[in-house]
């Protein structure tokens, strides 16, 4: 494949000017669409905009949706210039911000709202069968062969394959995974919106029942009803708005579409190429990043991505996370709102929300990464191989 040089023309040209989330956790009786609209209403109010100022919607819908942006526009009561629905799983949410930026830069829209909402807790608790299957995708989207006949189901197992392989190659341990879960829980306890309210010790991590080994209960992200939204506009327009703008410095994607089970894709993730390109667009490197918001569907995925983003060498993620690097005050405070392991799981949208909030410097001291100038956000999904990276900066 030829080398490419991401355009630097987009660096610092657009900003996130509105940020919102819905109620998080267990929100029975509210559809994923209404959760998304709740987050969007909060983002619009936060920005001090009128809904009529919005002329673009880029979102993602549930796995069985059709033209979801159309339903969002209907609920917001607006016509729009540039709108679409993305389909890259957990990598979609960063791509929505990237596409918004490109649309604004191309002159196709001025102010684009991006977001994602899901009702995964409610959906997996409608009855006992749904709870046992713990599957958010509709039947038609699930494997019909080369899986179910072997008792192979779900995302936990898919990612656990990568964890086993990494442990085999580098001597990584469950204890090291535990440090990730414990650090994020610590962060969640400072976040009043977070789904998890109780402290978690390393000892309790080890006592958690095994789900699909090597993953136990606390290696797995939450089932949540949750939504997040952000509003993107030009840096020029951002000047007159209510909030301190958050600069969009760079973004990129990479897709290991050859498949999670092929090559080394389960150990060297698409964060590598996606990160390298985003760093180039932003004009920064891993040493410049002050806080990371990593797509933490499972503890191991945090460790692998931290390596792939260059915060430590491949294979050294275990010692890196065990050093306390991810905690507030550590080398790289990560998932500072609690992440999908402890805040709530909106497939990467709340990582975008938290990355942007950290760049505003409006948090109380206990939640603010001190002097943070650069935040890196990751998105991962679509049968484990789609990846996106967003680099935000303090404007």
């Amino acid at each position, binding site marked *: 494949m030829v080398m490419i040089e991401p355009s630097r023309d987009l660096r610092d040209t657009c900003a996130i000017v509105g940020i919102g989330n819905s109620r998080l956790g267990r929100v029975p009786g509210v559809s994923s669409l209404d959760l998304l609209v709740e987050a969007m209403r909060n983002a619009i109010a936060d920005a001090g905009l009128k809904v009529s100022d919005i002329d673009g919607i880029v979102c993602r819908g549930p796995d069985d949706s059709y033209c979801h942006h159309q339903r969002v526009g209907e609920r917001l009561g607006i016509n729009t210039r540039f709108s679409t629905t993305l389909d890259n799983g957990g990598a979609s949410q960063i791509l929505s911000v990237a596409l918004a930026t490109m649309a604004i830069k191309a002159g196709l829209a001025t102010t684009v709202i991006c977001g994602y909402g899901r009702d995964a807790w409610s959906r997996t608790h409608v009855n006992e069968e749904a709870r*046992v*299957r*713990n*599957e958010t995708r509709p039947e038609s989207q699930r494997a*019909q*062969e*080369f*899986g*179910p*006949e*072997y*008792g*192979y*189901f*779900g995302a*936990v*197992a898919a990612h*656990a*394959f*990568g964890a*086993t*392989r990494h442990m*085999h190659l580098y001597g990584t341990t469950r204890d090291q995974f535990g440090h990730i879960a414990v650090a994020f829980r610590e962060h969640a306890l400072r976040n009043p919106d977070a789904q998890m309210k109780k402290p978690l010790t390393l000892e309790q991590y080890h006592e958690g*029942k*095994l*789900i*699909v*080994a*090597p993953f136990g209960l606390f290696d797995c992200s939450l089932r949540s009803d949750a939504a997040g939204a952000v509003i993107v506009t030009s840096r020029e327009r951002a000047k007159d708005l209510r909030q301190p703008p958050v600069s969009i410095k760079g973004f990129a994607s990479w897709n290991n579409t*050859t498949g999670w*089970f*092929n090559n080394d894709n*389960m150990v060297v993730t698409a964060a590598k190429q996606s990160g390298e390109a985003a760093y180039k667009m932003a004009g920064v490197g891993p040493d410049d990043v002050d806080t990371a918001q990593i797509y933490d569907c499972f503890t191991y995925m945090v460790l692998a991505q931290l390596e792939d983003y260059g915060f430590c060498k491949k294979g050294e993620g275990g010692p890196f996370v065990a050093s306390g690097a991810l905690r507030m005050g550590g080398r790289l405070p990560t998932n500072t709102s609690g992440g999908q392991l402890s805040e709530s799981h909106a497939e990467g949208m709340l990582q975008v929300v938290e990355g942007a909030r950290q760049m505003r410097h409006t948090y109380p001291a206990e939640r603010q990464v001190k002097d943070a100038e650069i935040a890196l956000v990751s998105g991962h999904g679509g049968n484990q191989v789609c990846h996106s990276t967003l680099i935000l900066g303090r404007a």
Partner: protein
Amino acid sequence: MSKPVPRPAPESAPYWNAAKEHKLELPRCNACGAFWFPPSQSCPHCLAADFAFVPVSGRGKVFSFVTFHRVYHPAFEQEVPYVVALVELEEGPRLLTNIVGIELDKVACEMPVKVTFDDTGDGVSVPKFMPA
């Protein structure tokens, strides 16, 4: 409750038909000679559409594996804990499978394995692997 039976896509029917006769056959490209899996009607290495299902050795090694403790489907309630593995065949492709005939805690990455067939009683035979 019985275990889920594979519902083959049209392109994988020959694979399951061979398995019924306890033969492991994978698509091989007549243009470049590469094997691939899962079955599809053109070669992902060179895009040629000229291929045939060809018997493979049935030998390989465990690339990675996981152990299911949680029951996701009622048919596996009596099976947990059980191992699901990704086996890399000598011919290259990797197959998702179960490892049988070994204690759970003895399964390891790189362990040599060979194919065995599990007749499910639904007229289907499922390729599994055991220590070689």
